[in-house]
C-alpha cells in the first residue's frame, strides 16, 4: 500500500532536520519556490486533494476562493486543534514527522502568497510543543522558514499558537476569534474566511493532515496522487482506531479501503471472545454504524455518505458486545453540552437539555416519552445553528437512539439502573452486569502505532 503521510514516520530520528532531509524532506519546497504560485494551486487542484479535517472540501478550490489583494496579504492557518473525540491522527503526525507538516504549511502559504502562517495547536497537546519548536528552529536556521526563504524574495514566518482547550476553537471562524485573542464564538457566514477572515483579511484554514499531503503531491505530481485512492477521494487517509479493538492506533490506508478489512486486519479484530457491535467512523460527530451496516462500506467520502454517515476526521471508535450504548451516549452528549460555546440558542440550550435527559434515563428517573423528546430536540437543533457543533451533537443522539432503541427503551421500564456508573467521576466506575463498561474503560488497550493519549 502506498504510504504518503507515514512513509518516514516510523524512523525514530525523523523529527530531526538532517535525518528528515536525508529522506527527502523540503525537496518539494525547493521545487515550489521555482514555480509560480498559480501553478502550485493548479497542481494541488489537479490532485483532487480534499480537506482532511472532516468536511472533505477540495483544497485547491478553497484556495481559489481567496480574494487576492496585494495590500492585504492573506493568512494561512493550520488547524491543529484536533478536538474531535476519537481522533488523534494530527497529534501522531506532529509528533512523528513535524517537518512534513511544516513543509506543507510552507507550500500552501507560498501558493496563496501568505506572509504569515499560524499553527494553532490545542492546549491539550502541550507535550508536542518542544518537538515542534525544535523542528521549526532547525528549519529557520537552515533558511527554510523566515525572511527571504532559501535566498528567494519570498518571506514567510510560521507562528505557533496554543489554544486554551476548547472544542469550538477547531471550528475555523472560532479558531480565528481565538487567534485574535477573543472568546471563540464562531462567526456568521457570509462573509466567508476567504473574503474576511483572521484580522479581517482573506484567510485559508487547512487541517494538519491536509497540509501534510502537499510535499508528496508536489514531489510526485498530481497524477501519482490521483492513482491512489478513489476517483472522488484521491490519496490516503489517516485513521485513528480506538475502543474495543485488538490493535488501536493510527493507520494510513488508501481511500476506498474496506472498513471491515481495516478493523479485522490492521485493527486485529475484536478483543478475545468478543464481537463488534458498532463503529463510529469519523469522530463522535457522525452517525454510528452497526456491525451489520459496516459490511461493504469503504473508507472514503462517498461510501460513508451512502451508508448514512460521514468519513469526518477518520477518528474511529469501536464498540463490542460488552458495551452498553446508553452510557456511551451519556459521555458523548455531555461532551457536546460542555463544549457548546453558548453563542446561539439551539445549541446552547439544546445540547444541555439532551445531556440532562440522557442522564435521567440512566439515573433511573426517565419519563415515558424521553426518547421521542430526544429526537424532537435534535430536530430543533439541526440546521439552525451558527456553526456545525449543533449538528454534530445531534448525530450521535439520533443514531444511537434510533439504531439501539431497544437498549434505551429498556431504561424506560427499568429503574434498577439508578446506580449506573457516573462517568464524570473519572474514577474506574463499577462494572454493572447489565450495562457493561463505562466509557472511560473502553480506551484502555495499548496502541501499536503511536501512543494515543486520548481519553474520554
Amino acid at each position, binding site marked *: 500500500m502506498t504510504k504518503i503521510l507515514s512513509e518516514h514516520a516510523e524512523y525514530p530520528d525523523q523529527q530531526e532536520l538532517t535525518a528528515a532531509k536525508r529522506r527527502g524532506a523540503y525537496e518539494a519546497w525547493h521545487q515550489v519556490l521555482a514555480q509560480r504560485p498559480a501553478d502550485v494551486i493548479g497542481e494541488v487542484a489537479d490532485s483532487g486533494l480534499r480537506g482532511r479535517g472532516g468536511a472533505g472540501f477540495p483544497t485547491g478550490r478553497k484556495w481559489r476562493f481567496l480574494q487576492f489583494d496585494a495590500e492585504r496579504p492573506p493568512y494561512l492557518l493550520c488547524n491543529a486543534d484536533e478536538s474531535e473525540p476519537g481522533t488523534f491522527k494530527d497529534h501522531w503526525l506532529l509528533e512523528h514527522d513535524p517537518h512534513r507538516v511544516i513543509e506543507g504549511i510552507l507550500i500552501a502559504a507560498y501558493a496563496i502568497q501568505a506572509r504569515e502562517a499560524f499553527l494553532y495547536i490545542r492546549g491539550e497537546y502541550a507535550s508536542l510543543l518542544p518537538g515542534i519548536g525544535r523542528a521549526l528552529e532547525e528549519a529557520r536556521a537552515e533558511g527554510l522558514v523566515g525572511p527571504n526563504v532559501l535566498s528567494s524574495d519570498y518571506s514567510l514566518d510560521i507562528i505557533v499558537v496554543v489554544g486554551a482547550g476548547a472544542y469550538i476553537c477547531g471550528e475555523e471562524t472560532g479558531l480565528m476569534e481565538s487567534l485574535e485573542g477573543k472568546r471563540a464564538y464562531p462567526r456568521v457566514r457570509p462573509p466567508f474566511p476567504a473574503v474576511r477572515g483572521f484580522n479581517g483579511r482573506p484567510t485559508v484554514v487547512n487541517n494538519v493532515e491536509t497540509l501534510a499531503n502537499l510535499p508528496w503531491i508536489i514531489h510526485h505530481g498530481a497524477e501519482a496522487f490521483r492513482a491512489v485512492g478513489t476517483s472522488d477521494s484521491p490519496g490516503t487517509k489517516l485513521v485513528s482506531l480506538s475502543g474495543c479493538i485488538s490493535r488501536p492506533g493510527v493507520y494510513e490506508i488508501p481511500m476506498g479501503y474496506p472498513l471491515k478489512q481495516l478493523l479485522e486486519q490492521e485493527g486485529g479484530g475484536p478483543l478475545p471472545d468478543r464481537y463488534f457491535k458498532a463503529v463510529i467512523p469519523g469522530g463522535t460527530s457522525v452517525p454510528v454504524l452497526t456491525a451489520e451496516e459496516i459490511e461493504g462500506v469503504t473508507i472514503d467520502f462517498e461510501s460513508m455518505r451512502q451508508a448514512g454517515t460521514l468519513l469526518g476526521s477518520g477518528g474511529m471508535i469501536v464498540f463490542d458486545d460488552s458495551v452498553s450504548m446508553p452510557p456511551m451516549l451519556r459521555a458523548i452528549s455531555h461532551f457536546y453540552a*460542555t463544549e457548546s*460555546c*453558548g453563542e*446561539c440558542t*439551539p445549541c*446552547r*440550550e439544546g445540547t*444541555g*437539555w439532551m445531556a440532562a435527559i440522557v442522564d435521567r434515563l440512566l439515573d433511573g428517573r426517565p419519563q415515558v416519552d424521553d426518547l421521542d423528546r430526544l429526537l424532537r430536540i435534535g430536530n*430543533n437543533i439541526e440546521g439552525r445553528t451558527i456553526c456545525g457543533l449543533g449538528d454534530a451533537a445531534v448525530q450521535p443522539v439520533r443514531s444511537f437512539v434510533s439504531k439501539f432503541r431497544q437498549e434505551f427503551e429498556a431504561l424506560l421500564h427499568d429503574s434498577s439502573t439508578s446506580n449506573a456508573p457516573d462517568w464524570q467521576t473519572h474514577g474506574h466506575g463499577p462494572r454493572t452486569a447489565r450495562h457493561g463498561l463505562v466509557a472511560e474503560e473502553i480506551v484502555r488497550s495499548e496502541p501499536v502505532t503511536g501512543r494515543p493519549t486520548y481519553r474520554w
Partner: protein
Amino acid sequence: MPIVTIDGHPISVEPDTLIIQAADRAGIEIPRFCYHPDLRPEGNCRMCLVHIKGFANLSPACTTPVTDDMVVNTAHQHDQVRQATKGVLEFLLINHPLDCPVCDQAGECSLQDFYLHPDYGLHPSDVDPPEKVRKRKALNLGPIYLDSERCVMCSRCVRFSNEVSGTGELQFVHRGNHVEIEAFEDRALRDPYAGNLADVCPVGALTSRDFRFKRRVWFLRHANSICAGCSTGCNVRIDYAENAIDRVVPRRNPAVNKSWMCDEGRLSYHNLQDLPRLESPLQRTEAGLQPVSWEEAMLLGQEGMRGPYGRVSAVVASAMATNETLWILRQCANSLPTPTEIDFRLQSINPDINAREDHLLRRLDKAPNSRGAMLLGAGAGRGIEAMAQSAEEGKVGVVVILHYPPLVGQDDNARLAAFQRLIRGAAFSVVLTNTVSGWWNGADVVLPVASWSEEEGTFTNFAGITQLTEAALTPPGEARPAWKALRDLLPVGSLSPRLATVEQIFDRGVAVISAFEGLHYATLASREATVYPPEGRKSYGQEGFAGR
C-alpha cells in the same frame, strides 16, 4: 434597487438591506432578540430564521442581505420556519425562571410577547422546574441590576458596551447553557450611558435601578418628548402616571440619538421633581411678595409694562424655553413702548453649542434650545451682564425675566446675581419662572410657569433639527405655560389673530422666520424618522415605542 418578496409582498429596498430591515419596512413581523437596528448584527438568537427559496437551511433574517428576486417566507407563511421559531423559543424558555409576576420587564418583554403569540409560542412546558440551570439573581451593577437566569444571551448589552459607549464592561463567561453575562469582578458599571443597557435588553435580565419595582409598565402613560438636559436633543419618551414621571427612555431617531441617551439626561427628571415649584402668581406688597390671582397679576403686569418710562427695556430669555415661548417673548419685547434689548446669554459670546462632552451624545451646552433662541433673535443683545450694568446705572425701565433652572447641573450663580441687579435697577420688573427662589425678591410680579414635560412645544438642537416635545404632566398649582402667560401680557390686539395653541404659534409665527421655513407643526408631530418601528406595528422590547 433589489426587489425582495417577503410572504408574497414585493418590497423594493436599497442593496445590502438586511431581510429583517426590509420586513420591518413592509410591516411584516419577524420575531427577534439579538437584532437591534443600531448594533452590529450578530445572528445568535436564531429567532428570526426565515426560509429563502433555493436555500437548504433556514437563514437568519438579521444577517442575510437581500438580493434581487429573493423569495423569503416567514413563520407566518412557512411551516418549517414556524417550527424552527417555536423550537428556538422553547429552548430559550427551558431554563428561564418562572418569575414574570415579580419581573420588572413583564408587560414589555419580548420573551413574554412571543410566547403569547400563536405562531411562536403557547407550547406546553416540557421541563421540570428542578432541572433548570440556576444562575445569579439581582446582582447590583450600580445603575443596572443583572438577573442572569432571565438572560437570553442575545449579546445586545455586550455589543452596546463595546460598540457604542466603548467601555466594554460586559462579557460572556462560561460555556454551554452555563453562559452568563458578567462585569469584571461584579464591579459597578462606570458607563455614563449604562441606562441604555436596560433598554436594549429584550428581557428582564438587565433592569434599571432607578425604575426597578417602581410601577407596572401597563399603568404607565407615554408622551413623546425631547430631553432638555443638553443641546443634543435626544428623542425620549416620558413614562408617567398619577402626574409624576416614573422614567424617561430614549426613542429611536437615527438622525439625532439613534436609540440612546445618557444617564444624566435619563435621570434629569429627578432634578425637576426636586425643585421647589412656584405654584401661584406673586405680587409685591409692603410685606414682600404675596400670592395673587392670575387676573390681578396680569392686570398689574400689563399696566406696569405699558410704562411710560422714557428709558430702555431689558428682556431676559432662556434657552430652556421652547421656540414658541421665545417667539412670543420676542413679540413681547417688540410691544414694549421703549427700545428693548433681548438676550439669553450672560455675555455677548455665542454659546458653543457644538462643543462635545464625550464621543457619543453629551454636549457641554446644557440647554436644549440655544440654537432656537439664536435663530429667533433672542440673543440679539449685549448679554445679561451688560443689561444689568445698564440697570445699575438707572437706564432700564421695564425688565422681563424668563428663567428655568437647568435640568442637568446647577443654576449659574453669576446669572442669578445679574438677575438681581436687573431687578434692583429696574422701574418695573416681571419674572416668569418655575421655581421658588431667592433671587427674584424685589420683583413687581412673579408668574409661575410650566416646566419641561408640562408643556408642548419645539426645541431646535445644536445641529438645527427642530423637534417636537409633548406635554406629559399637568403643571403644579396655578402654573401655566410661559407662552400663555406672555401672550396674555401683550397689549390686547397686538397679536392678530389671537394665537390659542402652540401649533398656531409655530405655524404662523416661528415658521415665518427663514430658518424655520417649510416646517409645519403637524409634520413635526409625525416625522417618520423619529418613530421606530414604523407606526401601527407592534413594538419589540424597548427600542420601539409605537403602539404602546
